[in-house]
Every structure is written in C-alpha cells, then in structure tokens.
C-alpha cells in the first residue's frame, strides 16, 4: 500500500479506534502504518457476487423492498480479507495487545476500502452495501446469501449463530439505480451505538 492509499484509509481507522475527530499522535500514526504493512501481507482479499434483474425471493420483504425501490436490479455479494487476518490479530493478542487492537481496526477499514474499490469495478449508479443484520433486517438472511453464492469457495463460512468467518468478511445487497440512503432509524445498534452517542453516524463518521 502506498502512502496516498493509506491516507485514504486513515479517517476510517481513526474512527474505529475511537478518535472522534481528535488528532492522533505521531507515534499512533507510525503504529498504524506498521500494522497496515503486516495486514497487507496477511490479507487475501476475495469476493463473489451475482447480479439479478429480479431480486431473489428473500429480498421480497421489508426493509429490503424499500431499499430496492426504483432500482433496476440487485447485486448480492460476499467479500473477505481471508483467514490470515484473523490469525494475525489473534496471534498478536498474545504478544502485543496494542498492535492486535490497532490491526483489527485497520482490517475493518481495509475491507471496506477494498470492497468499495471492487464495487466501483462492477458498475456505476450503485447504492451503498446493505448488510443483513443492519437497518432492521435479520442477520438470519445471511443464509439465503450463502445458498445463492456458496462463498465457502472463497473460504467464507457461516456459523450457527449467523456470523461469518473469517471475521473480516461482509455480505452485501446492493441496489443498481434506485435512491436508497443510509439511516439510523431502524438500526438494531441504535440503542447502544457509540457513534450516535457522540452525535456521529457510522456511515459518515465526520458528519453530525
């Protein structure tokens, strides 16, 4: 990763580390740079997706119906940084907890960054990624995405409690066209959301 790319990631990493708009120390910036270097070596970004003109059956209910309103089609996708990242974060937790926590936050930001890049490659006029479990949808819907995509092929598994492993994996439903916008209104995290408590939004860390 070159410096300018890392700079693109920094705001989101600071956000995950709880900086709330504050300026990090030079030591922290150095630490982030060095964690990102290790992370890049450990990560194996992989994705799978399918494009549908008619949305698959499981999207035929709220809140997806709203989300997909006026869209011309839908993309269902799974993206992952691979199990090497979980292994790195876990191993660091035994030797250097600070690096472990910082690497974890870097990985979350990195996955989003790579996923955004991959989406740009699919096409234009796409909505944000709607992830089952957020925005009033059930995390159980992940199983439909797994039936459709079989992301085991890229090493992503779904546990009986409906979380994905490797843990830096995302499943997304993306509307092609349409007018969907993010909102905290129906989010299941709303009550305990640290962003909201501080008056921020997870999808737009800088803005109140």
């Amino acid at each position, binding site marked *: 990763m070159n410096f300018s790319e890392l700079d693109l990631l920094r705001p989101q990493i600071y956000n995950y*580390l*709880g*900086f*709330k708009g*504050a300026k*990090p*120390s030079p030591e*922290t910036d150095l*630490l982030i740079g060095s964690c990102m270097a290790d992370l890049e070596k450990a990560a*194996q970004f*992989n994705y799978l997706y*399918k*494009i*549908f*003109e008619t949305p698959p059956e499981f999207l035929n209910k709220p809140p997806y119906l709203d989300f997909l309103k006026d869209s011309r*089609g839908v993309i269902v996708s799974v993206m992952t940084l*691979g*199990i*090497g990242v*979980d*292994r790195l*974060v*876990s*191993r660091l*937790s*035994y*030797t*250097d*907890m*600070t690096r*472990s*926590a*910082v690497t*974890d936050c870097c990985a979350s930001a990195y996955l989003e960054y790579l996923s955004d890049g991959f989406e740009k490659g699919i096409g234009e006029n796409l909505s944000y990624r709607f992830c089952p*479990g957020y925005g009033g949808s059930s*995390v159980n819907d992940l199983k439909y995405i797994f039936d459709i995509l079989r992301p*085991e*092929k*890229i*090493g992503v*598994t*779904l*546990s*009986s*409690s*409906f*979380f994905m*492993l*490797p*843990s830096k994996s995302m499943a997304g439903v993306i509307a092609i066209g349409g007018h969907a916008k993010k909102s905290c209104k129906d989010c*299941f*995290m709303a*009550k*305990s959301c640290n962003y909201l408590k501080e008056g921020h939004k997870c999808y737009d860390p800088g803005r109140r």
Partner: protein
Amino acid sequence: MLRPGEKIIVFDGGFGSELERLGLSGVPEDLNITHAEDIKKIHRSYSHADIITANSFGLNPIKYGGKFAIDEVARAACENAKAAGKPVFFDVGPTGMMMEPMGQLSFEEAYRAYKTVAEISEGLCDGYILETFSDLYELKAALVALRESTDLPIFATVTFDKSGRTLTGSTPEIAANTVANLGADALGVNCSLGPEELIPVVERLLAVSPVPVIVQPNRGLPVLENGRTVYKLSAEAFYESIKKMVEMGVAVIGGCCGTTPEFIEKISVFSGQNVRKREISRQTVINSSNQICVMDGVKICGERLNPTGKKALKEALINEDFDYIIGEALSQQDAGADLLDVNCGLPQIDEKSLMPKVVRKVQEVTDLPLSLDSSNHEALEAAARIYNGIPLINSVNGEREVMERVFPIAKKYGCVVLGLAMDKGGVPRTAEKRFEIAKRIIRTAEEFGIPKERIMIDTLVVTASAEQELVRETVRALELVRGLGVKTALGVSNVSFGLPNRRLLNRTFLAMALERGLNMPIMNPSDGEMSGTVRAYELLSGIDKNAENFINIFKNYTPAQTASVLGIKREEKSAQSLYDCVRQGLKSRAGELTEEELLTKDPMEVVNGVLIKALDDVGAAYEAGKLFLPQLISSAEAAKAAFAVVAQHLPKDRESKGKVVLATVQGDVHDIGKNIVKVVIESYGWSVVDLGKDVSPEDVVKAVNDHDPFAVGLSALMTTTVPSMEKTISMLKESGCRAKIFVGGAVLNRETADRIGADCYTKDALEMAKKLDELYIGGKS
C-alpha cells in the same frame, strides 16, 4: 484400473453447470431423489470418462440441508451414477464450517461427520474423491475417517488461488506431504483456476508428490456477461493444457466448474495411456498448515518446552498456564528454531489429556512444525490426531514392543518418527551396535508401511563426565547412520552434565557432531553461542551460499552481543521514570524501571503511588478524549509488566486483588474486546482466568467453581449470542455463584444487561477496571 499411477484415468466434468443447464435448482443432493432421471442423464452424458462422480458433494451431516434421510440420498446418488455403466466414486466435499482455532468446528466433530460419510456410502461405490478442500486440517479429518473405514481408493484434491496457496495458506508442497502421508492414493488440485493458470501449482505437486497427481481444473477463468458468470474457454484449449500436464506426469485428469461432456470426451483420448514416469527426491519432511521443514542441512529443534529441569514450565503445565507456554514457544521461534519439541511428561499430569491441549495452544500462535515428545503412546496418539499437519514423533527405540505401539500411530497420522539407537540393554557402547539398532528400527518401520524417509535416528548423547570415551562413539554413529540414507538428531547439551563451563562443551560438541552429519540438534535456540555455531557451520560447510544468512545475522555484531545475537530487539524511546514509562506505554522498559523504584520504595508504594497513579491519569485522559485506545492498551501492558515485577516482592496473599474469570460466550468467536479487557484489568492488579472464545455455559460454571473468582466477565458481539449469555448467567446463578457477573460487548447496553440478569454492565475495559476496584474497596470496608 482404479489404482492410479500406471495408466491415465479420466474423471467426469462439471455437475453444477449441467444442473443449471437443465434448469434444476434447490439442494443439489436432493435432486438424486426428486429428479433421478435428470441426474442419470447427466451421468450418462459423461460416459467417456473412466470414473463417474456421484452427486454427493455436500452430503455430510454438517453441510447437508435437504429434506431426506442422508443415507437414502447416498443410495440414490450412487444408484444414479451407476447409470453411466462406469465405476462410481463417492464425492466428498468440505463441511462449510471453519475449523478450530479460528473457527468453531473441532477436529473430532469434523471426523465424526466424515465417519458418517463412510457409513452411508459403504458398499455403494468403488472409491472416494475428496475435493475442493481449502483447509488441510479438515481434509485430514476426512482422510483419517475414511482411511480407517475402507480399503477402496481415495483421491484427494485441494484448491489453490493465484498466489499458489490454499485459502488457509498452505503451499502445494505442504498439501502434498500432508495428503500423501495420510494415505491418499492420488492427490492434486481441482476447481481453483483454469488449466493454464494451474500449471505452476501442478508442476510443484509433481516435483514432490510420492503418489500419482490428479488435476481437475475449471473451464478457464470466469468472465461476467450481462450479470452472469460464464466460462468461455474452448474444449480445444482445455485439451491443449491438459495435454501439457499429461506430458508433465499427471496421472488422473478431469474437469470442474464449467466443463461439459464435450470437454471430457476431448480429453478421454488420454485414457489408458501410460503415465509419464517422474523422478522425485524422497525427503524427510514435517509441516504445520503453513510452514514446512525439510530435513536437509541443519534444522534446529527447540528444546525449551520440556519440563525436565525447568521449574517454571513444570508449574505452568500443572496449572495449565498457557500464557507461559506460549511465551516459551514464541521466544524460541524468534531465536530461529525450525521446529519445536513439546513434552508434557510429569508424574502428576494426565499426559494424554494435557498434550493435545498444549499442542493446540502452541499451533494457535506459531506456524513452526512440532515434535511430539513422549514415552506415553496414548499421549502421542492424542496429540498426533489433533495436530494440524505432519508432526515428528519423538520417539521409539529398538524394542519391538515400543515400535509396535508407536508405528501404527505414525502410520495412521502420517508422522515422521525419531528412533533412539538403544534398546532394552540401554545405550550400546559402540557406534556399530547403535548402527545395528538403527537398521532394526528402519526395517521394522517398513514392516508397518512407513518408508525410510519418515524415520530419523538419534545416536544418543552420553554425559562426558560419566562416559568420556563414548562421546566419540556417538558422533561416529552419526556417520554410519547417515550412510543408511536417514536423517539424524541429537540432544546436544546432555553431553556436559556435571561439568563446569557447560556452554563451551556444548558448542564444541555441536560443531563435532555437525561435521559428522548431524541434521537436527535438539537445543536451546535462544543460546546465541549454540545458534551461532550452527550458523557458522552452515557458512563453513557451504550450506549458506555466499554467507548470506550469516552476514545478515551478524552484520551488526559486537562482542558484547554473544548471549543474544539472534534475539529480536525493538528500539524504543527511553522513559526516565516508571510513571512516564506507564504513561507512554513502553512495555519493554517497565520491568527494569520497576526494579529501580523498588530500591527506594516499598512494593505497595510503587503500586499505589506510581502504577495506579499513572493508570488513573491515563484513564482520565482517555475519558476526556485526550488519549485513545492504542495508548490505553499500551499503558495497561506496561503496567502489567511492572506489576509482574512488583508481585515478586509482595507476600503471596497480596500478589493480586483476586481472580476474574473472562469468557466470550458460546456461539461467538469475536474476542478482541475481551482480550483488551484482560490486559486492562490485569494492569489494575487482577489475576485473569481467560477461558477464551465460544465457551459453553458449563465450562464457565466449572471455572467459577474451580477458581472462586471475585467477578466473572462475559462478552458477546452478536445479537444472536445474547441468549447464550443469558443462559450462562442463569446457570451461574443456579450453581450458587457468588461472584459479580459483568457483561459487555457491542450489542449490550444497560437495559439488555438488566434483562438477562447481569450484575454489572460496563461500556469498556476501563470502566470495568474502575467498577471492579469500586466493588473491591466496598467489599473490604
């Protein structure tokens, strides 16, 4: 025909794409019953193949989500496949779950799933094709379960990505060593990429695989057309790439995603042709899932995980203090060990139960392959079974009974075995007699189906102070044994027992032994003089080409460094006082500065006046938004290191405020928050019993009963695991738990915490540390 190697065998091609073409959807295995005629039609369309694969890929009890009884589906799948009039192989795929330690599926659960596969397919097929595995650990479970159930041929294929590694990080060489040693009749690669892109991987497999190599590529790389994934490679181009691979020595061919009957018909011209003979060098190789250790040149086996003569390790093993064990493993890795010996032999320990736990823990933190060291064959079997990869077993000797107990274990789990050149009569006095025992061990191993390259010989070090004249016999025996074509090992430092200046004797003896053919010194890699001797030998004997490694290690050498020339050191800015050190989070200087403080201050004064003050100041700055998570954790780590030093100066009952049991609840594996809590509360003087992640309510209750903690901390990240947290709390209360129950994690808030019966909810690690202290002081007053 079904035994691969002599004549080329052709498998069928893609199945999913054919189902799609017929417009069939749903659980693919169920179609065997609901659409038997369509399935038969597909199988018949592949009748150019020599072997037909049953439509049973997802048919294991973990993965199968259809509506029929699993054995009924297995029968239908094999029946349908027979319609093509060719031998039928049962298709065995992964479970779709992530294996431990990163995931939740244990080796035994995976083994049981594949044992069921063996049962439901018994008598229905002519062989097995295990395919599309990306985790060799899961493939091991499948191979062990099937191999003990059947003598039919078992072929196994793995998927690799563009980087030439599996999704879990294994190379083709690691895959080949693991799969061949575990008894597959053919091994190779399927799916992954197109045939042309797979050639580099195939080349590497052909260079090392002792068994025939199988290739079933996709129809090239997929491309996107109008939102659909399509494969566009022509049958002609597919044929040309397969032809190249046949010329390279591939023995079994077929197709995967996107290939159709046309493709298989095209490549069926190779069927029955002679397989091109390959030359492979048969090396002695052990591996973990991500690291391989080929026993050529010199390989250092770290000896520090052996409790003999090590009081601290003994205590750690008895108390199952894995942090200490992990520390020893990592320091040997940093010092340059190539593999680690693991020994848990203590009279008061149930070795059979502890050894697998230690092996799991060590494999969680390091990729170094392991040597499983025990005289208890049950402990060896338990550890070899759950080991991820191919381990070394240490050891057998020339006694028939010992070999009869250990060789079957080595055969079943594919291990390399270290044989000690001694028998009932003890260590023979001459090199020739040790050589004879070595020959006997190699011969007996072959009787058990273990080839010579999977045997190493230890010619045994005797103490120079007791048997001075035997030292030469040991090194002479190395030379003789080397002539047998096997690799050698020695526990080097035994030579100097009872003598002064042991390190001088050890390194001199090491140099003597290396020159006579020692491959694997078992030694302390952190002893810079010993490791340095190995590096110097590698340079002087020409193993270290152009002295690259030696220069790299010693380029900044100054004489004062001898004790730790190979250790890794991190430069850190210096702190003047312990207070600054904790505030700035400089862990490496904390111990030394604490010692300085203790020269002038009472231990409790250091704790309250310096450590707690620094932590409180850091905590206040964190809460005020002036310091952030990285600094908070660094300070906690520095304070924890300081605390460890202070504790040595405190009376036993004041070493810690009390115990806190921590766990991420069952069903959840996200433990970073719990790990942060651990460091922070430890820095405040609490002893943490860390139960890890995905911990069952029963295990939490048991730990609370065993440790009688002051508090229990439970964490959960997912809404779906909150019920599991609730169950844990209710079981704790039913068991009469007196400890305060804390909960935390992304989905928790005070309201939920109250609803599920927790005593305290804290939003982060710092708040928990403060709340604990509040309760602690309240309880005392």
